[in-house]
């Protein structure tokens, strides 16, 4: 198998590339990123890994990559995970990376002479969480088409649907709607939220969350690459727990606050500390439960979450744990 991986310099892309380079059934990984070079990838086996800096928002560069080097090297599968991670940025440039690049890439891969499989990493956040919807979100659940949603979310819904529109065509497509990956540098809202010494949550609500580890996300992508099942697959993580327990796991103070106060308080935090966390983006899941149902991924891709997430614990918490373990 020869695989083209976009977003290879991001934490998930890097984990996917590492896994593929280490796999026996993978002959070559063509890793794509925006940066001219990447130290961590440079240390991997150069015989099995080729890194290219390509700006996929430029249609000509994308076309040259897919119909040039990828065709010459006989790439037969593509993993696409190159959406803009930060919720702070917005605008046409971000939209071009999030949506236009996906559209161009999936079009370029359709009817390609060598590419047969396309795995798109989507997001569990595309589902509309309401008080009227089930706690367990399966692949048929309604998507969030709220025009008032931030661009970060609107782009993800649009990109997801753009890929889904090609399902049933000549390209074998798997869309993986992953639960939130709780890790640094992946654009996780929850990770940023859990950095505060005290985490505020809506008083009287303790919704269920499901979080995914970087290792499991990479494993799900690898399973989808090797499988032949097409369609949309939810990818839940191993950790399903109430928000209060997530705060507790991170060693932070759990502070329930009347709901209407949260938006101004987190707005103030964002303004003062320049943090990533947007309460407006999380208001629904901080009230209503939303746990991805991974039955389809388990049955058709053979994916089972195994690795628990690494909670963003404070330094003193980690120190106490180490001292406790030594004692």
């Amino acid at each position, binding site marked *: 198998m020869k695989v083209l991986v976009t977003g290879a310099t991001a934490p998930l892309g890097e984990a996917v590339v590492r896994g593929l380079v280490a796999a026996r059934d993978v002959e070559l990984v063509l890793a794509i990123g925006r940066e001219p070079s990447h130290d961590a990838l440079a240390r991997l086996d150069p015989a099995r890994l080729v890194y290219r800096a390509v700006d996929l928002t430029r249609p000509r560069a994308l076309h040259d990559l897919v119909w040039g080097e990828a065709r010459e090297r006989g790439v037969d599968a593509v993993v696409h995970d190159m959406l803009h991670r930060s919720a702070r940025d917005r605008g046409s440039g971000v939209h071009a990376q999030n949506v236009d690049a996906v559209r161009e890439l999936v079009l370029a891969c359709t009817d390609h002479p060598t590419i047969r499989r396309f795995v798109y990493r989507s997001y569990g956040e595309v589902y509309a969480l309401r*008080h009227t919807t*089930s*706690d*367990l979100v399966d692949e048929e659940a309604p998507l969030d088409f709220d025009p008032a949603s931030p661009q970060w979310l609107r782009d993800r819904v649009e990109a997801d649907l753009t890929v889904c529109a090609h399902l049933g065509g000549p390209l074998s497509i798997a869309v993986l709607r992953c639960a939130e990956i709780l890790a640094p540098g992946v654009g996780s809202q929850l990770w940023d939220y859990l950095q505060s010494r005290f985490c505020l949550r809506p008083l009287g*609500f303790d919704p*269920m969350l499901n979080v995914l580890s970087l290792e499991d996300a990479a494993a799900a992508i690898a399973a989808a690459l090797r499988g032949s099942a097409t369609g949309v697959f939810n990818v839940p993580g191993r950790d399903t727990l109430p928000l209060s327990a997530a705060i507790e796991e991170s060693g932070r103070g759990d502070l329930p606050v009347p709901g209407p106060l949260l938006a101004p308080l987190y707005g103030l935090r964002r303004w003062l500390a320049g943090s990533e966390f947007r309460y407006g983006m999380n208001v629904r899941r901080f*009230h209503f439960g939303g746990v991805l149902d991974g039955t389809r991924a388990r049955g058709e891709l053979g994916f089972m979450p195994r690795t628990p997430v690494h909670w963003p614990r404070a330094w003193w918490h980690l120190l106490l744990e180490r001292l406790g373990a030594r004692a």
Partner: protein
Amino acid sequence: MTEPDIWDERVAGAIAALRQRLTGDYEVDEFGFDKHLTDSVFLPLLRPLYRNWFRTEVVGAENIPTEGGALVVANHSGTIPLDAVMLAVGVHEAAQRYLRLLGADLLFRMPVLSELARKGGGTLACNPDAERLMRAGDLVGVFPEGFKGVGKPFADRYKLQRFGRGGFVSAALRTGVPIIPVAIVGAEESWPVLAKVTALRAFGAPYLPIPASPVPLPVRYHLRYGPPLRFAGGPDAAADPTAVAIAAREARTALEQLLDGACAARDGVFR
């Protein structure tokens, strides 16, 4: 066991539960059901209400399955649905099983109640959640009258309201579990509604209920469990609206008969 022994045991149990809580040594299922909190806080708080305040009498407890999934279908009444909570306590008392109550979406919009309902094992009244729970072998409790039952006038007490569109029956048919009808008698008189203020409403509630008394009256509760109802046709019948309607009618008739029997058998409201 002497009185001091009982208190020693209770204090030791409370300390053990608190310790377990603080160390995080408890599990919460994917719906948010916190079994540890239910066992150590909710049930001990509600039992005196069930045993001493409402002096609940139970008939037909042997009809509650000791294992496997089932759908417990009951009538609904009261200013706030205390009958649902008493039914959950009653099932636990009789069969040591947890009743996973299905609640209206309104419940999950309300602060505090939403959190309590989830931790106590409740979930949204929708077929996917109900079916998942029943397939997993849980007892699921449903009140097909919904708000119509809770908000009905006192003059209509113990008259079953419309049973929706039989969604609960199709869930039972699809999962192949029995339906256990339960008549709850006493809840209608314990906390009747004096008035409904539609001008004062919050969190999407249709009205603010004004109860006739500041606390629920200590009427005697009667829980009468009927024999399990099993319907022919299995999962295929769930897709047939006629079969669903027939099964829903049978469940309603069984519940009505239980209700009439329980009302006729009691000596008075408070006795």
